[in-house]
Protein backbone atom coordinates (compact mmCIF):
# COMPACT_ATOMS: atom_id res chain seq x y z
CA UNK A 1 0.00 0.00 0.00
CA UNK A 2 1.43 3.41 -0.92
CA UNK A 3 2.51 5.58 1.98
CA UNK A 4 3.99 8.95 2.77
CA UNK A 5 7.62 8.77 3.81
CA UNK A 6 9.69 11.31 5.68
CA UNK A 7 13.40 11.74 6.26
CA UNK A 8 15.17 11.96 8.56
CA UNK A 9 13.25 10.37 11.38
CA UNK A 10 15.15 12.48 13.90
CA UNK A 11 17.17 15.64 13.35
CA UNK A 12 19.21 17.42 15.97
CA UNK A 13 20.45 20.91 15.20
CA UNK A 14 21.92 23.95 16.86
CA UNK A 15 19.84 27.07 17.33
CA UNK A 16 20.23 29.39 14.36
CA UNK A 17 21.02 26.62 11.89
CA UNK A 18 18.99 25.87 8.80
CA UNK A 19 17.20 22.54 8.51
CA UNK A 20 15.39 20.88 5.65
CA UNK A 21 12.82 18.23 6.37
CA UNK A 22 11.98 15.95 3.50
CA UNK A 23 8.81 14.19 2.53
CA UNK A 24 7.85 11.94 -0.35
CA UNK A 25 4.07 12.10 -0.75
CA UNK A 26 2.03 9.34 -2.34
CA UNK A 27 2.74 9.50 -6.05
CA UNK A 28 -0.67 10.41 -7.49
CA UNK A 29 -1.55 12.90 -4.78
CA UNK A 30 -1.96 16.57 -5.59
CA UNK A 31 -2.31 18.32 -2.23
CA UNK A 32 0.47 18.49 0.31
CA UNK A 33 0.60 19.62 3.90
CA UNK A 34 2.95 20.18 6.79
CA UNK A 35 1.81 19.95 10.40
CA UNK A 36 3.74 20.06 13.61
CA UNK A 37 3.22 18.67 17.09
CA UNK A 38 5.12 20.15 19.99
CA UNK A 39 5.66 17.50 22.65
CA UNK A 40 2.50 16.95 24.65
CA UNK A 41 0.43 19.33 22.54
CA UNK A 42 -1.98 19.00 19.67
CA UNK A 43 -1.13 18.69 16.04
CA UNK A 44 -1.10 22.12 14.37
CA UNK A 45 -1.41 23.02 10.71
CA UNK A 46 1.52 24.85 9.14
CA UNK A 47 0.99 25.06 5.41
CA UNK A 48 -0.78 23.52 2.45
CA UNK A 49 0.60 23.34 -1.08
CA UNK A 50 -1.10 22.74 -4.38
CA UNK A 51 -0.14 23.28 -7.99
CA UNK A 52 3.35 24.40 -6.99
CA UNK A 53 2.26 27.15 -4.69
CA UNK A 54 1.17 27.69 -1.13
CA UNK A 55 -2.60 27.57 -0.88
CA UNK A 56 -2.92 28.28 2.81
CA UNK A 57 -0.66 28.90 5.78
CA UNK A 58 -1.08 29.39 9.49
CA UNK A 59 0.28 32.10 11.75
CA UNK A 60 3.05 29.73 12.75
CA UNK A 61 4.37 29.64 9.20
CA UNK A 62 6.33 32.87 9.27
CA UNK A 63 9.21 34.08 7.10
CA UNK A 64 11.56 31.55 8.69
CA UNK A 65 9.64 28.74 6.99
CA UNK A 66 9.46 27.83 3.36
CA UNK A 67 8.23 24.87 1.35
CA UNK A 68 9.24 23.53 -2.00
CA UNK A 69 8.49 20.70 -4.36
CA UNK A 70 11.82 20.66 -6.13
CA UNK A 71 11.55 17.64 -8.38
CA UNK A 72 7.97 16.43 -8.65
CA UNK A 73 8.35 13.78 -5.97
CA UNK A 74 9.84 15.40 -2.89
CA UNK A 75 8.12 17.99 -0.73
CA UNK A 76 10.39 19.86 1.63
CA UNK A 77 10.01 22.13 4.62
CA UNK A 78 12.89 24.49 5.32
CA UNK A 79 13.41 26.36 8.54
CA UNK A 80 15.92 29.09 7.84
CA UNK A 81 17.18 29.85 11.34
CA UNK A 82 15.92 27.42 13.92
CA UNK A 83 14.78 28.47 17.38
CA UNK A 84 14.42 26.40 20.50
CA UNK A 85 10.65 26.58 20.16
CA UNK A 86 10.84 24.91 16.73
CA UNK A 87 11.56 21.64 18.50
CA UNK A 88 8.63 19.43 17.58
CA UNK A 89 7.48 16.48 15.53
CA UNK A 90 6.83 17.57 11.97
CA UNK A 91 4.31 15.61 9.93
CA UNK A 92 3.90 15.69 6.20
CA UNK A 93 0.57 14.72 4.68
CA UNK A 94 -0.74 14.32 1.18
CA UNK A 95 -4.17 14.05 -0.35
CA UNK A 96 -5.21 12.79 -3.75
CA UNK A 97 -7.88 15.33 -4.49
CA UNK A 98 -10.45 17.47 -2.75
CA UNK A 99 -13.26 15.08 -3.53
CA UNK A 100 -11.61 12.28 -1.58
CA UNK A 101 -10.65 14.68 1.20
CA UNK A 102 -8.53 12.20 3.10
CA UNK A 103 -5.05 13.21 4.18
CA UNK A 104 -2.44 10.51 4.56
CA UNK A 105 0.22 11.27 7.13
CA UNK A 106 3.86 10.31 7.18
CA UNK A 107 5.59 8.96 10.29
CA UNK A 108 7.03 12.36 11.16
CA UNK A 109 10.44 13.90 11.71
CA UNK A 110 11.37 14.73 15.26
CA UNK A 111 13.33 17.99 15.25
CA UNK A 112 15.37 18.85 18.31
CA UNK A 113 16.89 22.32 18.48
CA UNK A 114 19.66 22.75 21.05
Amino acid at each position, binding site marked *: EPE*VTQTPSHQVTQMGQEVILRCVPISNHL*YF*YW*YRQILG*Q*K*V*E*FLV*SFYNNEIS*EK*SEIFDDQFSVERPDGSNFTLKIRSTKLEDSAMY*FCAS*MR*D*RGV*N*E*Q*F*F*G*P*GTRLTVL
Partner: protein
Amino acid sequence: AQSVTQPDIHITVSEGASLELRCNYSYGATPYLFWYVQSPGQGLQLLLKYFSGDTLVQGIKGFEAEFKRSQSSFNLRKPSVHWSDAAEYFCAVGGLGNNLFFGTGTRLTVIP
Protein backbone atom coordinates in the same frame (compact mmCIF):
# COMPACT_ATOMS: atom_id res chain seq x y z
CA ALA B 1 -13.58 30.03 14.80
CA GLN B 2 -12.60 26.47 14.12
CA SER B 3 -11.72 24.31 17.07
CA VAL B 4 -11.91 20.81 18.43
CA THR B 5 -12.32 19.92 22.07
CA GLN B 6 -11.45 16.56 23.50
CA PRO B 7 -12.37 16.91 27.17
CA ASP B 8 -10.71 13.72 28.34
CA ILE B 9 -6.93 13.96 28.47
CA HIS B 10 -6.43 10.40 29.69
CA ILE B 11 -8.77 7.43 29.89
CA THR B 12 -8.04 4.05 31.40
CA VAL B 13 -10.20 1.05 30.57
CA SER B 14 -9.98 -2.66 31.19
CA GLU B 15 -9.41 -4.96 28.28
CA GLY B 16 -12.77 -6.14 26.96
CA ALA B 17 -14.62 -3.12 28.29
CA SER B 18 -16.41 -0.65 26.06
CA LEU B 19 -14.90 2.69 25.16
CA GLU B 20 -16.20 6.11 24.27
CA LEU B 21 -13.94 9.05 23.49
CA ARG B 22 -15.59 12.43 23.33
CA CYS B 23 -15.10 15.08 20.69
CA ASN B 24 -16.84 18.41 20.24
CA TYR B 25 -16.12 20.73 17.37
CA SER B 26 -16.75 24.23 16.17
CA TYR B 27 -16.58 24.87 12.46
CA GLY B 28 -18.03 27.63 10.35
CA ALA B 29 -18.91 25.56 7.31
CA THR B 30 -19.94 22.01 6.57
CA PRO B 31 -17.64 19.96 8.78
CA TYR B 32 -15.69 16.96 7.67
CA LEU B 33 -14.78 14.99 10.77
CA PHE B 34 -11.98 12.54 11.38
CA TRP B 35 -10.53 10.35 14.07
CA TYR B 36 -6.82 9.54 13.95
CA VAL B 37 -4.81 7.22 16.15
CA GLN B 38 -1.15 7.68 17.03
CA SER B 39 0.89 4.92 18.60
CA PRO B 40 4.10 5.92 20.40
CA GLY B 41 6.73 7.07 17.94
CA GLN B 42 4.39 6.58 15.02
CA GLY B 43 2.53 8.84 12.65
CA LEU B 44 -1.18 9.45 12.46
CA GLN B 45 -3.38 6.69 11.14
CA LEU B 46 -6.91 7.43 10.02
CA LEU B 47 -9.50 5.41 11.92
CA LEU B 48 -12.62 6.79 10.27
CA LYS B 49 -14.16 9.85 8.73
CA TYR B 50 -17.53 11.48 8.31
CA PHE B 51 -18.46 13.58 5.33
CA SER B 52 -22.20 13.20 4.90
CA GLY B 53 -24.99 10.66 4.93
CA ASP B 54 -25.40 8.08 7.66
CA THR B 55 -24.37 9.68 10.93
CA LEU B 56 -22.94 6.44 12.30
CA VAL B 57 -19.70 5.62 10.55
CA GLN B 58 -17.64 2.49 10.79
CA GLY B 59 -13.88 2.53 10.76
CA ILE B 60 -10.94 0.21 11.01
CA LYS B 61 -10.06 -1.92 14.03
CA GLY B 62 -13.70 -2.17 15.12
CA PHE B 63 -14.15 1.53 15.85
CA GLU B 64 -17.23 3.54 15.06
CA ALA B 65 -18.25 7.15 15.56
CA GLU B 66 -21.52 8.99 15.60
CA PHE B 67 -22.01 12.49 14.25
CA LYS B 68 -24.56 14.54 16.16
CA ARG B 69 -25.04 17.91 14.53
CA SER B 70 -27.28 19.25 17.30
CA GLN B 71 -24.54 18.60 19.86
CA SER B 72 -21.60 19.41 17.57
CA SER B 73 -20.14 16.10 18.60
CA PHE B 74 -18.38 13.21 16.94
CA ASN B 75 -17.71 10.65 19.65
CA LEU B 76 -15.62 7.56 19.00
CA ARG B 77 -16.72 4.20 20.34
CA LYS B 78 -15.58 0.63 20.50
CA PRO B 79 -17.63 -2.15 22.13
CA SER B 80 -14.67 -4.19 23.38
CA VAL B 81 -11.20 -2.73 23.79
CA HIS B 82 -8.07 -4.73 23.07
CA TRP B 83 -4.67 -4.12 24.67
CA SER B 84 -3.34 -3.09 21.25
CA ASP B 85 -5.75 -0.14 21.23
CA ALA B 86 -3.60 1.69 23.77
CA ALA B 87 -2.53 4.86 21.96
CA GLU B 88 -3.29 8.56 21.57
CA TYR B 89 -6.50 9.41 19.75
CA PHE B 90 -7.06 12.67 17.93
CA CYS B 91 -10.30 14.11 16.64
CA ALA B 92 -10.01 16.55 13.75
CA VAL B 93 -12.30 18.78 11.71
CA GLY B 94 -11.80 20.39 8.34
CA GLY B 95 -13.55 21.55 5.24
CA LEU B 96 -13.45 20.09 1.77
CA GLY B 97 -9.80 19.92 0.86
CA ASN B 98 -8.84 22.24 3.67
CA ASN B 99 -6.33 21.86 6.44
CA LEU B 100 -7.35 19.97 9.55
CA PHE B 101 -7.86 21.32 13.05
CA PHE B 102 -6.96 18.80 15.69
CA GLY B 103 -8.01 18.36 19.27
CA THR B 104 -5.46 17.96 22.04
CA GLY B 105 -5.87 14.21 22.01
CA THR B 106 -6.97 11.54 24.47
CA ARG B 107 -4.45 9.05 25.72
CA LEU B 108 -5.97 5.59 26.15
CA THR B 109 -4.47 3.14 28.60
CA VAL B 110 -5.74 -0.45 28.57
CA ILE B 111 -5.27 -2.56 31.66
CA PRO B 112 -5.45 -6.35 31.64
